[in-house]
């Protein structure tokens, strides 16, 4: 390989990867609504398609902030009182992924079921 071919391939690879990332960011995906009411999640079980990115819209209908936290899904986000936030999850392998409301762990619990 000449001196210029190696960096050229790296640059081309970077451009292609960047394009894939960008197109991934704008692809349409299913949206699901998750409500926080009285320090509980509604619904408690969320069914999502496996192997696909999913957009969770979390609406906090309580008067205090909550933190959506899931180690299984690797997500952590504060939802202000009365606020609506979007959390992208997946693509997920089939299985159960639990999540909690960190500020009210005793009652705010739920699970995402990917199938």
């Amino acid at each position: 390989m000449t001196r210029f071919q190696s960096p050229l391939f790296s640059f081309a690879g970077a451009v292609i990867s960047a394009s894939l990332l960008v197109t991934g960011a704008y692809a349409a995906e299913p949206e699901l609504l998750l409500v926080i009411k009285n320090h509980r999640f509604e619904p408690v079980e969320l069914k999502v398609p496996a192997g696909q990115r999913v957009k969770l819209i979390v609406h906090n209908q309580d008067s205090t902030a909550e933190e959506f936290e899931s180690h299984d899904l690797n997500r952590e986000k504060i939802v202000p009182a009365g606020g609506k936030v979007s959390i992208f999850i997946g693509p997920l392998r089939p299985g159960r992924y639990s999540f909690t409301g960190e500020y009210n762990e005793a009652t705010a619990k739920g699970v995402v079921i990917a199938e």
Partner: protein
Amino acid sequence: MFATAIIVFRETLEAALFVGIMAAATRGLVGRGRWLTAGVLAGSAGALALAAGAEHISALANGVGQDLVNAGILVVALAMLTWHCVWVSNQGAQAAADARALGSSFKQGQRAPWALMIVVALSVLREGAETVLFVAGFATGSGPTGTLAGAFAGVLCGSAIGAIIYLGLSRVPVQRMFAVTNTLILLLAASIASQLARALSQAGLISVWGQPLWDTSPLLRVDSPVGTFAHALVGYEAQPTGLQLAFYALALLVIVIGSRWVRAAQARRRTVVTARVLAGA
């Protein structure tokens, strides 16, 4: 009150560890106490502002505004830490070596590195905003006195751990101090890179490598005391995604290789300087 204390303790711990390590890394530098205090105060003020604007920020950008702000903060912190590791810390060691080569004594009189102070402010800002939101919510719910007492206890305990880390690091002899604190800052930078990966995935900006690769929760849970500490210090995750691992490794590589490159360039320059000095004598 106890629940409040635990949650506030966890948030405070991350910031306290940062401040403790930065304090140790800047030991002996002029004006460092003022800079650290300024960083913590600025971070606290920013945290209140961020918490106050939380509702507005969250609604931005189709509901991912918070992640974008978070990612922005992390990028700046990462840039500051990288700059410090690669450039500033080498300058410190370089100045000492230069002084020795020229036969003069080396005094640690340099000004405190502002890059680290910015990182301190950012760290306090992030954890502080979460804490303020949480405490504000709880205070209206279950009564202000108990909540504030719990929050105070949490901040106290978190800060105590930070102070212990600082005191422990202070006992390291000055010759080894650079190496020890540089390693700790390197690991902090890598863990920030990993958190950046998660923020970008969460905001839907990157959709590849999002699957957790393994689960070490049976060995060490992230919300256990040791796990919390490991998470704050080296960015431990029980279920890291491929993207997080990639960002973590990339940060380590960039800083280590960049640091070596700068050091080698300075060593070459040092040889020239010494030769000139000897030739002139």
